[in-house]
């Protein structure tokens, strides 16, 4: 790294700063300005609405459930993909990235095709008298799907870095598999895991298109924070929509700052 000397480096830095300022910073500032346009009192008042609180509560529940599921299964998947060799490993490894590029709308649509009235599992759904499509369970499936890659993708490189020798040593010394996992594997991957969990949480809370299709956005029943924003825009309640958006954005920034701290920490321990 060096000091920028001459006009070319300075021009390059100028372009990069200007581009990011216009593309990212300006829109972020605009929404804060929009939310507080009629003062802080109106901002807080629009948040203190039973419908808004219910929407946030559903978002939080879905996000936490998705984090728990993807932490447990994600760690298992990461471990199996790194430590074991088997036919089809490369295929499953590539498959993990799929949710990154599948449109959320299609994700929601998948739930309908599987659990809707004419879905593959319609008889099963009918027999057990549960509702999955156009209900919260379907939204949970979507949330788990869209946030599936994060824990796996953050834990895998860390596992690879550690190598299998520490686990092997523990096992040779007589530790059970569970004990080896808790005492040897877990401490090694914890920062990577935490990083993955932060990303999972942020992605899950922000999900919109998938839960819109799979849940149907019924006020008070299947309305998350993002779906509330969408509905409020439709009803021209702009301040309310901006206020909820600002809260979601603030949460995203908190996660980002937390991750930055985590990254510094992992760099130090390495």
């Amino acid at each position, binding site marked *: 790294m060096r000091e920028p000397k001459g006009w070319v480096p300075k021009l390059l830095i100028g372009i990069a700063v200007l581009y990011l300022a216009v593309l990212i910073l300006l829109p972020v500032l605009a929404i804060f300005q929009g939310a507080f346009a009629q003062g802080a009192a109106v901002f807080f008042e629009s948040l203190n609405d039973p419908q808004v609180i219910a929407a946030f509560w559903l978002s939080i529940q879905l996000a936490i459930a998705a984090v728990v599921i993807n932490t447990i299964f994600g760690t298992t998947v990461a471990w199996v993909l790194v430590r074991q060799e088997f036919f089809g490993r490369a295929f499953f490894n590539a498959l993990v990235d799929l949710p990154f590029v599948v*449109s959320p709308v299609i*994700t929601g649509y998948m739930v309908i095709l599987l659990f809707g009235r004419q879905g593959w599992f319609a008889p099963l759904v009918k027999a057990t008298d549960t509702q999955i499509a156009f209900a919260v369970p379907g939204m949970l499936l979507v949330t788990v799907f869209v946030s599936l890659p994060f824990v796996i993708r953050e834990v895998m490189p860390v596992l690879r870095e550690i190598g299998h020798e520490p686990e092997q040593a523990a096992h040779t010394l007589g530790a059970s598999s569970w004990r080896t996992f808790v005492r040897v594997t877990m401490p090694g991957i914890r920062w990577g895991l935490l990083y993955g969990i932060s990303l999972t949480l942020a992605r899950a809370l922000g999900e*919109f298109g998938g839960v819109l299709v799979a849940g149907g956005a019924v006020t008070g029943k299947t309305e998350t924070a993002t779906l509330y924003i969408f509905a409020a825009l439709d009803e021209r309640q702009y301040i309310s929509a901006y206020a909820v958006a600002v809260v979601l954005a603030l949460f995203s920034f908190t996660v980002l700052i937390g991750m930055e701290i985590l990254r510094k920490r992992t760099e130090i321990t390495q």
Partner: protein
Amino acid sequence: MFDASIKKRQASRPWGQWSLRAVALIYLSAMLLLPLAAVVSDGLSGGIQGLWQDISRPAAMAALRLSLWTAAVMTGINTVMGVLAAYVLVRYRFPGKAFLNALIDVPFAIPTLVTGLMLVVLYGPQTAIGGFLDRRLGIDIIFAPPGIILALLFVSFPFVVRTVQPVLTEIDLDQEDAAATLGASSWTTFRRVLLPALAPAVISGALLSFARALGEFGSIIVVAGNFPLRSQTAAVYVLSQIESDNQRGASAMSVVLLAMAFTLVFVVDFIQRRQERRNA
């Protein structure tokens, strides 16, 4: 890496290993493969011809075309600006750099619906900037392709930067210095020394951002709305078909989008694995 010791260890306690593998593969299959199979089989239930019939309707074609060209324009801009931002961040020291670096991750963390809302607040016809552009220059941003491109630029900005950055960090400054000492201009140095080394990462990042853009929904539905033949992208088209209970139309477009996403992911995977092998 996978030497004899792994094989031996797997052989010494097969049940634990096998059950873990079973849990992992069943989870991935149930969560990813099963839903995928449902969409693909529904989309292909009328054969390739049926699929073509559903996808060749004017509204479907217009939506697909709009998605493809806006994503292509975004990818072009994003690739140039992403490489530039990565280069500046890796090579130079300047005030505010840490802030700039943190700003790059913002699109990953912010819900895309909120992104769309931000752009409407900034560029909507009633705002200062939007009003100016509309009245003075006759440029519509909201409910028009420029808004779609802006939204795509925002949500996919990190892809190129974050794939190029680590590769650039690995490349020694010495190589660039050597080229410069031998009389190469900074542009020649960039083109002849840096670009060949960066190419796989740049291409991977560009393809991923393109794939991501094809499926983008949350920001676009707010920025562009849902007007068939005018501002309706492929993902929004899928939603409109679901809402009007046209399952065939929704499935056909879904299959086309999935096929493109799949291809891009596997191409990127191929590029990255070839690169790893070369480095090993």
